[in-house]
């Protein structure tokens, strides 16, 4: 796993695509065990891809960034977004949308609550979408408390986290700005504002 502190010192990355929020619900098809046993999961993956209708999603867990697979599926109309969740673990989100934005990657840290953390040009981002309560609040507060030099944090949430407000206020943080998009409510948190 990439550490949060280590991640903060790396070059900034692109924002995840807007459609990612809808893909987070999909259970991943994990091919790591098959590959470890020397089996080729391509047939299984193609079969799974055949079952995806236009606008649908496919999520694959692999031990490496499966670039050949991503190119094959891009030719069939799939955009993809890959996240390196740690050593030997990539999660690739495929979306059948005519390969409009066909390939993005991101190196993320995975918090114990399941939240993903990465760095963009405007600072550290954390994605707590699809986590059950109170995991989103725990992940955000854990990041804030464990990173003393953190002055701002961008949160990707699926709703406005009302119950977070009192906890943020107690820690001297506040919500400076909110942008609501479909399944992606972004909150810019600031320390001491």
């Amino acid at each position, binding site marked *: 796993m990439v550490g949060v502190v280590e991640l903060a010192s790396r070059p900034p990355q692109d924002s995840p695509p807007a459609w990612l929020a809808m893909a987070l619900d999909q259970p991943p098809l994990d091919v790591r065990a098959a590959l470890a046993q020397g089996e080729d999961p391509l047939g299984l993956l193609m079969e799974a891809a055949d079952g995806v209708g236009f606008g649908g999603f496919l999520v694959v867990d692999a031990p490496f960034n499966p670039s050949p697979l991503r190119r094959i599926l891009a030719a069939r109309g799939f955009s993809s977004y890959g996240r390196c969740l740690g050593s030997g673990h990539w999660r690739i989100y495929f979306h059948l949308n005519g390969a409009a934005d066909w390939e993005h990657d991101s190196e993320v840290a995975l918090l114990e609550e399941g939240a993903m953390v990465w760095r963009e040009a405007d600072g550290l981002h954390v994605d707590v979408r699809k986590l059950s309560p*109170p995991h989103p609040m*725990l992940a955000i*507060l854990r990041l804030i408390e464990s990173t003393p030099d953190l002055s701002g944090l961008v949160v990707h949430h699926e709703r406005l986290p*009302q*119950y977070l*407000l*009192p906890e943020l*206020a107690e820690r001297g943080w506040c919500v400076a700005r*909110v942008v609501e998009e479909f399944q992606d409510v972004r909150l810019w948190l600031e320390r001491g504002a």
Partner: protein
Amino acid sequence: MFAGAFMMGAKDRLLSPIIPFRFFASAIVFHVAGWAVLSWGAETALGFVGGTGAVLAALHLITLGVLAMTAMGAAYQMLPVATRRQLGPAWVCSLSWWLFNPGIVLLVMGLAGGWGAALDLGGFLCVAALSLFGLLVARNLLQVTDLPAVTWPAWVAVACLAGLLVLAVLLVLDMDVGLLVNRPAVAAAHALLAGYGFMGMLVVGFSAVLLPMFVLAKPVDDAAGKRVAVIAALALLAGLLGTLWGENLVQGAGSILGLVALGFYFAVQRRVLASRMRKKLEPFFRLLKAGWGLQVLSLLAALALVSGAPAEIMAPLWGWLLVFGWLLSFATGILQRIMPFLASMHSGAKGGKPVLLSQLTSPRLLDIHAVLHLAAVVLMAVALFFDLPLVARVAAFCGLGGAMAFAGFALVMMHVYRAHERST
């Protein structure tokens, strides 16, 4: 974008603050009233095994006025957020409050003085209010496929609510037309479903949501939550059937199963607390811990009762430990944490800086409440066991003092909250 618009997208799940706070305000008033009525007839609690009068009135002021009222306010606010599903129209929540308050007052007048008309009308209004609550909760739960640690105990609570309301109607009708063959058994079944079933299972469900949120811990594991709900449901079924059939062995099995369920519940809560980020437990937790201990004692008292211990001692002691011991300690513990939390949350809804939780609490008043409340619980238990009327009166006055301190805390909190609202 932020100012003024922050909470707009959450309107479907976040109620106007006036709805939960109305319920909490009523709970605080009925809390004082309950202890006041008990102070008036404290001596009659000794050997109480049923019948109208001050004790039954005080008991219903606490069960309906404080416990159910708190549960309704908290559930209306928290359940839709926890389950991420809509609860229902806000006006139905308000309607249940408008029906419930006069209902409780009339019912309690009927129970205190044996007035049939007040009892009938009060009973009708209370049944209507609680039915609305049950329907709203059931409607919300029907939409939820995940969160079994919350939904399973909540479903058991809703089923028990339906059962206790049917028995309540029978008990009221029986006073008018005398239709029950074994009224004491039906009254005991009503108490069991209300105390352990409706309120007890709501406590289990709330514990899976509120406690992890308040101590900043991982939520309750699904399998463990289901296990507690299933064993508790079996315990309730055995207790109910044993009570209605007059079978002590079945009742005893219910008590033992209840203790087993409690053991699993404690194990679940221990895991929650072990994973918490907030290392120092806040003062409200002392009441929760006391309540848990008293819950064990109430089940042991129930076991002693069905094992042949004298009913005139053990029956009132069981009811005392269950209602004033476990449930009232838990409810006041949750109230003193949830009210400032919601006030702080709503104070930030307009985009300004929320008023801090620490500014909304009055530690000294809460200390006074905790000391007097626990003194009242212990003293009354001693009075009931050793038949000491004077100690019973002192206990009731301690409880009244504690309730007034608690009301003082709520008034200070609302004053700070409203001052903050006026300044933003």
